[in-house]
């Protein structure tokens, strides 16, 4: 009957989900170790020769400037988690808030204004929007955070709006009104907690999307400004691959692949475990 135990029990019986959990856990440990300054701190030091092959000094070899590729790939884990978490949490909260307001006051001017904003944001091609934001913010490192949060909330908002419109006619919401609770309290305590399954799934989707988008934007020069990311490494590798040096390319793309694959497996398993329809059977 205990919800946490049930979810854990279901996850344990799902080998793919468990594998995802292990992979994401490892990446998370690496990200925290980098954040605490334990590893990956020498990512910018050019202490090797150009294009050294993998060896005991430089595990993954060095890049065109003689920087250690292992250090750079490891530091990029932190970059990925940082943007993934910031964007996933902010865009989900923003979507939940705006979606809940639109749903609760549906067919009023509040709903109209939020839907209009969503329509406008959805109609702008994403990379054009990011480029515009990055240009407007004059190359600030958080320009891509702003651009992603501003556009990623719309799907969450739409789903939450529909769910809230459904929930607000349910008897327990009417019951909350008949015991005299004000709207804000009903929305915050009885309506939004009942959309948690949507929020969790949307946050996990936003996390993956943010990491992918960060890599693409960094590759295009619109993303990470002071730091290193798999996208920047891939951008470097465009010159190296032609010269027959694959270390940078392989390190960045394989680590990106491993993290996204692991996270998708975990998210799928969690989605199954959290599914309220399955839980009631």
């Amino acid at each position, binding site marked *: 009957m205990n919800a946490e135990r049930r979810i854990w029990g279901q996850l344990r019986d799902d080998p793919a989900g468990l594998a995802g959990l292990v992979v994401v856990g490892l990446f998370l440990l690496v990200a925290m170790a980098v954040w605490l300054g334990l590893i990956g701190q020498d990512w910018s030091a050019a202490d090797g020769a150009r294009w050294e092959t993998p060896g005991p000094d430089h595990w993954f070899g060095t890049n065109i400037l003689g920087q250690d590729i292992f250090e750079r790939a490891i530091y990029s884990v932190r970059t990925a988690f940082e943007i993934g978490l910031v964007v996933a949490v902010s865009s989900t909260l923003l979507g939940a808030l705006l979606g809940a307001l639109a749903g609760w006051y549906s067919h009023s001017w509040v709903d109209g204004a939020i839907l209009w904003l969503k329509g406008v944001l959805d109609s702008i091609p994403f990379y054009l929007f990011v480029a515009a934001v990055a240009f407007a913010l004059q190359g600030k490192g958080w320009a891509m955070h702003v651009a992603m949060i501003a556009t990623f909330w719309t799907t969450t908002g739409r789903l939450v709006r529909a769910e809230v419109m459904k929930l607000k006619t349910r008897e327990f919401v*009417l019951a909350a009104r008949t015991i005299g609770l004000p709207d804000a309290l009903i929305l915050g305590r009885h309506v939004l907690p*009942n959309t948690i399954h949507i929020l969790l799934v949307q946050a996990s989707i936003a996390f993956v999307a943010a990491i992918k988008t960060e890599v693409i934007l960094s590759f295009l020069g619109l993303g990470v400004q002071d730091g290193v990311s798999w996208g920047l490494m891939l951008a470097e590798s465009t010159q190296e691959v032609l010269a027959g040096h694959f270390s940078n390319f392989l390190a960045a793309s394989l680590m990106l692949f491993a993290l996204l694959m692991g996270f998708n497996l975990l998210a799928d398993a969690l989605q199954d475990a959290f599914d309220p329809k399955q839980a009631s059977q």
Partner: protein
Amino acid sequence: MKSPVLAVRDLSVFLQDGGQPRAVVDTISFELHEGEILALVGESGCGKTKTAEALMGLVPTAAGSIELCGTNLAALPEARLRRVRGRDISMVFQEPLTALDPVFRTGNQIADVFRRHRGLGRAEARRAALEMLQRVGFADAGHVLRSYPHELSGGMRQRVVIAMAMACRPRVLVADEPTTALDVTTQAQVLARLTEMAGEAGTAILLITHDLGIVAHYCDRAAVMRMGRIVEQAGVDQLFAQPQHPYTAALLGAARGNLLS
């Protein structure tokens, strides 16, 4: 005779029906006295539930007045209405599962009422909720307090809803088919507990039902509703013995037919 705790006069509720407003509750009037149980009977779709929702201010009233102890609820702004709801007038819903928030422990939902209207702190409200659960007849109230709605049976859930509704000893309780979703034995237990608690607190009940057996057993008076109007209103004994309106007679006839078959 004392003045009624609830006096409804010429109450109308309109619904938009394909652009054309239609009266689903049509100029009905009735009174409810302290400690009295008035049945509102009628077939599905006759406007019983809309009447209940109008009394609670959940749907806008088109015309008429709802005087609770001399205050007209129909003219009260939402903010003032909130202070009355749950304290002076409260409601028990038909479906005990959907009337409780699935993600909250039942204790917190009852405690909410005490914190809202009695201004109790967290711990005090919890104690009050526990006491309320004991009063609706739970032997292991402490366990129910910590349970989620889906862990309780239908009858238990409805008793939790009753505990919520009766928490502040309201003057008027609107019970919208409180036992329709329950089996017959549980029905009797829940209704007995409800009427007993109402009797102690002096709460008047508007009991909405289509079950004439319940009307005969628990109610003092009955109002028969049909197509948004109250067609007949009388003491239960008199209504059963000498129905004045042909519809009432037909309703009683149908119920007897059910008993025979």
